[in-house]
Structure formats: C-alpha cells, structure tokens
C-alpha cells in the first residue's frame, strides 16, 4: 500500500504494516487512509474531466 499512500503525500507506513509489526491491527485504518488520499489526488486531477464527460455526445470519442 505504500504506493497508494505516497501519492497522497502521507508518510511511509511500511513499518506499521509489516508482517512483524505489533501495530498490525492498524492496517485497516492505514489502508483506508491510503485509499482516501489516493482518491483525493485522482479526483483533484480528473474530477473536472469526469464531470464534463457526461455532457459529451454519445458519438464522440476521446
């Protein structure tokens, strides 16, 4: 999940997510944070294009 976290600018969480980590129970929370950060970046860059796409003609191709 490091890639998901890094794109959102969060810190490297590999220590906490390691198999030997005592904090392994936090994985779900860290996972969700990574997904959310990633989604925020993607929506920032693509959200406008996605919204505009519904106005395009059915025959158009992009």
């Amino acid at each position, binding site marked *: *999940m490091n890639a998901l976290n890094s794109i959102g600018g969060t810190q490297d969480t590999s220590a906490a997510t390691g198999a030997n980590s005592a904090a392994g129970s936090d994985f779900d929370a860290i996972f969700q944070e990574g997904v959310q950060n*990633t989604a925020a970046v993607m*929506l920032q*860059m693509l959200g*406008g294009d996605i919204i*505009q*796409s*519904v106005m395009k003609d059915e025959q158009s*191709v992009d």
Partner: protein
Amino acid sequence: MLEAFNFATIDAPPSCAGVPEEEAEASGVSRDDLKLLCEIGVMALAMERGDEALPIFRLIDSLQPHNAAGAIGIAMIEVAAGRERDAFARLRSAIAKCRICVREAKAILAIFLMGFGRHAEARPLRREILRGPDCGARRLIQSYGPV
C-alpha cells in the same frame, strides 16, 4: 477538502429558460441534471461518502453505457470498501467497451494496480497514457514518477 476540486465546471452559465425539451433524455434526466449529479458524486467520493453516491454512478452507468464515468465512480467506491478485484474488473470492462472517459479510467486503474503492487499490469497502461495527449490523466500519471 473543497480545494481538491476543479470547480471550473460549476461556473458555467446556467441553461437558458428556453432550452428545448429535446435536451431531456428519454429517461427524464437531462444532461445538465446528470452533470449536476456527477458533480455531487465526485464531491461525495472526495468527502469519503462515496457509498451515498453509489446510486448516482449507477444511474450514469445505465444512462450512458458508452461513458466510463459511472464505472469509475463505482470502482472507487469498491476499492474503498476493500473490493479491489471487483473494481479492477469493472474498470477493465469499461475501458474495453466505452468511448468516453477511457483515459481517465485507464489512469485510475493504473494507479490502483500500482497501489496494490501489480506494477507489471500497470506499466502498459501508464505508457499508453504518457504517449497520449496532454490531459488530466496524463498529468496524474506523470506526477506518479517514471514508468
């Protein structure tokens, strides 16, 4: 969270009162209505309330099966719910059958694949997007580093 959005589309002038009714789709949902719903859906995704927007993206998917926007929204909700395999399959299907919003679907699939350590599957998608025209999808992939 609001700065996460490109609100350029919201500043578009409202439709004229005299717009012919032919703009309304057979479903009764006009393009303008669908755009507004899509804006709400994108906002909900960014606010971690994607589940509430699921009906919106399903509606877009059913009314515009040629557009990957609906599949993108549903896939993002699926990933957030831990159903990444469903999301990958949905995005791949949309990429294969859709004509609009395909670059965005490819970019999102590539990034999700990388996030789950499937770099080899993401690489061809990234290369294809980077070879394409300048757009949000390409800038997103460029921001993610070298292929």
